[in-house]
């Protein structure tokens, strides 16, 4: 299969991605990226994070615009609910990453997508974060993602599509596997 013969249009520039893979394999230092966000406490449990710049391709890069994310807790936690909870934003990151993967892999495999919707759920017992039960972890017990895909492809092909999307997902790896993390005072 060559790209030019591919009539599928999912809005993903596969040529560019394949080109990047080739170029970055030849210049691995350019493949080192650092992603950043900065967070400022507002009031109570409300904070606002911004995402603007990142490092990659051997240089400082900028998003087209600065993105803002309000993070808070809901009113049932005696908070003001000025934004999604941090754990919901993790879910947003995971499902967004998988969906981007679905579109990219579909493009590459010549699968025309008509619609892709996904629901993601994370189960959590908050006795963990409340410190009320040492046997319960703070984080999710389990995360479930369910994709509904309308496309010109068999069910098996679509299953293979979401499997490949997991294989290439950064956030899936972040959530499923340990990451070194250090929190310190500036």
């Amino acid at each position, binding site marked *: 299969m060559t790209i030019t013969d591919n009539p599928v249009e999912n809005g993903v520039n596969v040529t560019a991605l394949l080109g990047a893979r080739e170029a970055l394999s030849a210049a691995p230092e350019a493949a080192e990226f650092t992603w950043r966000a900065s967070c400022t406490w507002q009031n109570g449990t409300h904070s606002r994070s911004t995402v603007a710049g990142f490092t990659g391709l051997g240089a400082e890069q900028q998003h087209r615009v600065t993105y803002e994310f309000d993070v808070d807790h809901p009113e049932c936690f005696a908070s003001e609910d000025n934004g999604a909870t941090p754990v919901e934003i993790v879910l947003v990151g995971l499902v967004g990453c998988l969906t981007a993967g679905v579109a990219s892999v579909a493009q590459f495999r010549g699968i025309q997508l008509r619609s892709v919707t996904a629901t993601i759920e994370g189960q959590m017992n908050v006795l963990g974060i409340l*410190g009320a*039960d*040492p046997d319960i972890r703070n984080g999710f017990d389990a995360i479930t993602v369910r994709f509904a895909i309308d496309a010109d492809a068999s069910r098996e092909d679509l299953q293979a599509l979401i499997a490949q999307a997991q294989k290439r997902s950064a956030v899936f790896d972040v959530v499923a*596997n340990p990451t*070194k993390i*250090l929190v310190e005072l500036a």
Partner: protein
Amino acid sequence: MQTTAVVVGAGHAGLAMSRRLTERSIDHVVLERGEVAHSWRTQRWPTLRLLTPNWQTRLPGHDYIGDDPDGFMPAADVVAALTDYARLVDAPVRTATTVHALRAAPQGFEIRAGDDLLHARAVVLATGACARPAIPAVADAIPPPVTTLTPLAYRDPGQLPAGGVLVVGASASGVQLAGEIHRSGRPVTLAVGEHVRLPRTYRGRDIFWWLEATGLLAERYDEIDDLTRARHLPSPQLTGTPEAMTTDLNTLTTLGIRIVGRLGLVTDGVAQFSGALANTCALADLKMNRFLNRADEWATASGLDDDLPPPHRFAPTRVDPHTPLELDLTSGEITTVLWATGFRPDHSWLDIPVRDRKGHIRHDGGVVTGAPGLYLLGMPVLRTRASTYIHGAAADTAALACHLHSFLSSRRR
């Protein structure tokens, strides 16, 4: 058979309670499934020594009188000391008498023990906090060729196959066994989660001297901010050795032991370790230094600075930046996994609805909630932070015997 009180378990707590009941002329019997100090005879590895120095191993009516007050008793000496103590206090121990069931009865409690049925107006549960190993659910995912065992079954490294050993848990048991097993020529990887770092000695005194002198051990259960956390805190990274060695993670790293993060999942035979190891260690260092600050402030306020060596701080825990996050348990490198992940009490024979939804007995400083006349002893931070250690039984049994006595008197009226 009818008796006023029954004590279940002839370990240090049960024997101390027997002494308290005798002091108050309360007719009682101590039921023991084996012999006095049974778990110390059968479930402790021989090189295990008490974490507390000999001078602190005080029980009601008995202080340490040996010639090594700063030493640490090995398991066999604990057995001997408790056997002597049982004789000293003339404890009415019925050995080889396993309690099968404890139920509420019209006049108190009904205890099925051995072939007998006993009736008592009060019962004291003193079977200890370390009856069963606490093994995490991830144990089910350890691939079969790997041998697994717990500290209760461990005797010496010779019982383990040759090859690498993954010790899971870095509290008192974990750090001691990691060192002992590594020195036997079996390379040890130690999975470290939240832990309590303490030096064996500080400014020339044992750390337990400081914990006692500063009043920390005397902190009462109803004055501790987060009692749940205090009761579930892992035991401190201390070992009792003749040389009073510090056994922190730096010591183990120097020995050649590989330190990794908390064991998370085992997927397809591959163990995954938390990436938060450096953070976890930094927190333990911080906590240790906060206690040393408190100790120094106390020493100054007590006018002891001239009598003690000057304050100092210990090197931060070293964490290798290349610490692996994964270990393939199918590669043959690891032949044994040792679960040093803590212990649980065993009150499975208790047939009275006094448990919370987690199966823990609800109690207020050892006075069991919802079952007048029923008492609990020998649990971590039962009444004070000292309750976790042998000498804590002195004050705990004094308080509970007093409560029990009042309970009996109020019933008589």
